[in-house]
């Protein structure tokens, strides 16, 4: 099941990605709407992270292409932000919280240009938005998991992008951080920016997102949450092995999501 977006932010066209000649994503073809908070959902090994990495040009594509704002990635890179999984970096690295957030500004600076006062102010502002301004001078090794995730989010905000790809921003964070991050993401989409999030928890997915991509190596469904988050598609994505699935669809019914015409 596939709903086409009216105002397209990202278009995946017949995308196939393989590791070692073994395909991990098969023929993904869909369009995603601007201004939506989009969740990529699927079981482990479904290719969720692979999907956003291939959109960011971090993996070689076997076939197909990805267009962002109807342009090639290299033409719009400046307006696209990518947040890797928190575990992919060494948090014992000798650097401060502010320096990490400043990395978000480096994309627009030349090789030798030093960050200006304005860049530092923006970085501090972004730290404030995620409630971390008191930590700006700390070494990153002193942060908890939730704080690390907030720093990554602040770095992404500092990029001032229009499209955000985030790999598991809610993984292993405390409840306070979860709602803080969600608030920031909702603020971004309210400004018309598009946020695409890899997510693995079905329960919270039902509450967080406007648009859902259900993935299990191939595209199961993509569309507004009330059309996609149904027992049928969830069973298809997860192979019917989750008893939690029916509970989730109950949850959805209780929420009685209004149909979202804007997509």
């Amino acid at each position, binding site marked *: 099941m596939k709903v086409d977006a009216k105002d397209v932010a990202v278009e995946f066209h017949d995308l196939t990605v393989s590791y070692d000649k073994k395909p991990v994503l098969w023929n993904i073809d869909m369009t995603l709407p601007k201004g939506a908070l989009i969740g990529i959902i699927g079981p482990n090994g479904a290719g969720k992270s692979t999907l956003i990495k291939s959109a960011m040009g971090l993996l070689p594509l076997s076939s197909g292409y990805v267009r962002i704002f109807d342009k090639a990635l290299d033409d719009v*890179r400046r307006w696209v932000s990518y947040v890797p999984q928190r575990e992919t970096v060494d948090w014992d690295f000798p650097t401060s919280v502010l320096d990490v957030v400043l990395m978000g500004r480096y994309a627009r600076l030349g090789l030798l240009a030093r960050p200006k006062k304005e860049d530092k102010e923006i970085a501090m502002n972004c730290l404030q938005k995620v409630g971390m301004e008191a930590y700006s001078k700390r070494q990153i090794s002193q942060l908890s998991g939730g704080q690390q995730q907030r720093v990554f989010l602040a770095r992404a905000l500092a990029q001032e992008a229009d499209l955000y790809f985030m790999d598991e921003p809610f993984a292993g964070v405390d409840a306070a951080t979860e709602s803080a991050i969600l608030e920031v993401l909702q603020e971004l989409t309210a400004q018309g920016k598009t946020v695409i999030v890899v997510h693995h928890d079905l329960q919270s997915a039902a509450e967080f997102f406007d648009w859902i991509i259900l993935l299990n190596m191939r595209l199961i469904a993509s569309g507004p949450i009330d059309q996609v988050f149904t027992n049928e598609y969830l069973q298809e994505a997860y192979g019917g092995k989750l008893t939690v699935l029916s509970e989730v669809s109950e949850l959805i019914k209780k929420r009685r999501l209004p149909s979202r015409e804007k997509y």
Partner: protein
Amino acid sequence: MDAFYIILTASLFSISCGLLGSFLILRKMAMVGDAISHAVLPGIVIAFLMTGTRDSFDMIVGAAMLGVFTTFLIEFFHKRARLQTDAAIGVTFTWLFALGIILISLYAGQVDLDQECVLYGEIAYVPLDLWITQTGLIMGPKAIYVALFILLVNIGFLMIGYRNLYMTTFDPAFAASIGISVSLWNYLLMGAVSMTTVAAFDSVGAILVVALFVVPPATAYLLSHQLKTMMWLTVGFSIFISIVGYYLAVAIDGSIAGAIVTIAGILFAVVFLFAPGQGIFRSKTKQTQDATIEPNLFERENLT
């Protein structure tokens, strides 16, 4: 004056090695530095056979290219043959080093190189190899000029590339996402490592040069919260071990390069035991300071 020349040469080389080594250990690639230092040997011998001198610019460039080739081979075996990185390193550098040893033994008569020099270096002879201009002016030991040139190249490279090296080291996926070529900067760093190794091996030998890449920055790492602090401390430690190491060698009448590395090892042990914050006998005050801001309380305040 000889003592000054030797200490200066050792300091210049160890600063070069230490600055590059800071990035190597943060990339968890200290052993790639080890591999390069061995693998450039056949390049050194071949370049020597072709040019007939041991300190030509061609030789440094030629051998440095072999170092980059080593990095490429390691990556290739790791990615294509699905070999673990450490196994890929082990296969690559031992094979190239062995090739170099064979070349030296084959052409022993023509080559002013022997295994001993390759392994331990001959920094004590630095003051003997003078640069004398055509007018007969004595400019001082050649090695100092080589070391100075290499250091200036490295400092230039690090000043231009600092930010990109920092980003590709800390978060390569993010760096790639903003359009920085991670593999380009990896090869540039490895090129600098190879060049420095080739230049320094004459003085400190192919094995001990590894210590200069790893030990001073590892010591500085224990004391630093910032990459720049770590690099400045590395510079300080490099000078310190060169001076103290030289006088230790004089006192015991032993190998200078060996004494320098021994001092580096002792310095690491002392810092490891007594470093504030991270040492075994860490001060209690630092810990209590860290506990004063309760992260959870603070977070809740901000959220409400």
